[in-house]
């Protein structure tokens, strides 16, 4: 096989997600009353990047064959924190942003420490830490409220040069600063290797524990960036249980749509980003077609069900029935 074929085989999931997104967005903007304008793109981008950040966070953990059911709650907690801290003069705002991101890192590190060094199952452990994070969020914001440095918020949710949505640029910067170095580092490879086959990775002397720990920690950071952006969009903080849960759920859907294998070791955050953008666009399709918003949860649920069932097609390739059981 030629080099480009290997590349294509590896990137198939990402390209698939990209394709879905392009098709869906084309349908969306073609039927939108305002058409394909900078305003429509900006609004769509602002909604999409929130899920994209959380989906990236989920990707890092899913690559190690784990799962983080607390990402939505870290997102909610950091939203509540940002509504207290990211305000005031430039310096205060800066420290506030750092504190919020640090909190995210800490939450992720706690998850990682409990799961890797405490040897607990990721599902149960992150459900429990998610309850703690939500409790803290509720402590910070018993009722919705707070405010944010509006200059910074408007800058990061507006447009550069009148066309490019700033939130997309921020997403690109985060990809370049967090994802690219991680996936190319020794620890990133360790995370992939641990997800692919932990035993083989261990035997090869790969630092799997540190790789997985870094993946969980960075997942916390990415969820915190998402929470920060939520504050920039809404100008308030709210400890909403349903919204936190929905983000966790949608992040898993986005990851699956983005071609990241839930069994670990396969996929990339870029795919998950397109998965997230596609998922958001599909959800918004209902609005441009003037459906009753009541149908939206059902529609999203059915899309999710179809997306996760797509993986079942691999079964047709199975020759030996014992391969049903992993």
């Amino acid at each position, binding site marked *: 096989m030629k080099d480009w074929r290997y590349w294509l085989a590896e990137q198939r999931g990402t390209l698939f997600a990209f394709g879905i997104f392009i098709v869906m967005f084309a349908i969306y903007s073609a039927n939108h009353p305002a058409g394909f304008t900078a305003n429509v793109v900006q609004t769509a981008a602002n909604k999409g990047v929130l899920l994209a950040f959380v989906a990236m966070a989920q990707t890092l953990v899913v690559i190690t064959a784990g799962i983080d059911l607390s990402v939505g709650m870290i997102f909610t907690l950091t939203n509540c924190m940002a509504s207290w801290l990211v305000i005031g003069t430039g310096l205060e705002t800066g420290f506030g942003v750092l504190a919020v991101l640090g909190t995210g890192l800490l939450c992720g590190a706690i998850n990682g420490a409990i799961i890797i060094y405490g040897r607990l199952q990721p599902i149960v452990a992150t459900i429990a830490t998610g309850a703690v994070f939500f409790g803290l969020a509720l402590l910070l914001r018993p009722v919705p409220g707070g405010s944010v440095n509006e200059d910074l918020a408007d800058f990061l949710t507006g447009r550069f040069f009148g066309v490019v949505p700033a939130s997309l640029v921020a997403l690109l910067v985060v990809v370049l600063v967090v994802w690219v170095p991680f996936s190319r580092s020794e620890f990133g490879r360790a995370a992939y290797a641990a997800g692919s086959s932990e035993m083989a990775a261990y035997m090869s002397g790969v630092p799997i524990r540190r790789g997985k720990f870094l993946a969980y920690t960075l997942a916390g950071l990415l969820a915190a960036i998402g929470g920060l952006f939520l504050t920039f969009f809404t100008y308030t903080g709210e400890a909403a249980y349903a919204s936190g849960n929905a983000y966790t759920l949608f992040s898993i859907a986005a990851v699956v749509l983005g071609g990241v294998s839930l069994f670990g070791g396969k996929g990339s955050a870029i795919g998950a980003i397109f998965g997230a953008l596609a998922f958001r666009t599909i959800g918004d399709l209902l609005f441009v077609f003037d459906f009753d918003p009541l149908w939206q949860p059902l529609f999203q649920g059915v899309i*999710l069900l179809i997306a996760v069932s797509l993986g079942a097609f691999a079964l047709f390739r199975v020759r030996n029935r014992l391969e049903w059981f992993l």
Partner: protein
Amino acid sequence: MSETTLGGLAGRMPKFLRRADPAVVTAFACIVLLLFLGSLYSRSFLSPEYLLQQLKVASFLGVIATGMMLVILLGQIDLSVPWAVAAGAMMACAAAAYGSAGVALAIPFGVLCGVAIGIVNGIGVAYLRIPSMIITLATNAVAQGLMVVYTGGFSPQDSATAAMRYLATGFTIPGVPNAVIIWALIGAAMVFMLTRSSFGRAVYGIGNRERAAYLSGIDTRRIVLIAFAVSGGLSAFGGVLLAGYASKAAQSMGDAYLLPSIAAVVLGGTSILGGRGSYLGTVAGVILITLLQSILSVMQMPEAGRQIIYGVVIVAMLLLYGRAPASR
């Protein structure tokens, strides 16, 4: 039995203690500790009325956790509990609005809706080989969507039937709430099924290694499908009971039961990886969780504090005895 090899303390302990699972013993010890701490706070914690009331509240969680345990024993998980509970409650109340036949069929209809959700889960997990965590999340979202469309986003106005109220709040035997009797019956059936039937053997077998169970001639996919259907049905039945208790269904009534049901099963010593665990442990876990919730609310702890303590306690107890073996 050679006393020398068993060593001092363990050798002198009565037989039933020696055989007991340390996790179950720890869970019961924690229940006693909680009751002791509670009684320091207020003497009424040890009164029979309070304890019976707790047992009654625990029985709703107990019914739901029974189904969850069956699924966890297979090495799977059922995250569709929240809306299976709500769907069971809402559909039972909805059926009650359709004349006397509707009233008579309300409970079976509610449970059947849960079974249907469970069957979708089971098909996804057993035949399509989708990870259970994912497919159950998806069916949960679909069930939520269906209920939102049905109710229009508000709590339904239909109220529970007299039979549902009787099951949840009545007394057939003086002094013992019906809900507790129901939990005891379901628990007994579960114990019988797990320990005395080939279905139970198959469940433990699949939980240990599905491949081996398959090669031993067990139709593993059918067993998994049935287990998920039972879990969905029991969740919905829990919802029916809850609707009877509150005399109506509500939008997010099931949300408060997902984490507690998983926690109760896992705290009771059932391995989240499947294949190991006893129903006695689940009973202990359910009572432990209910007591913890009750004591926190009696102390008038705000919701935020409750969530934090709750999560910390679960992580701490799992770190005590729920850890995976140190490999290599």
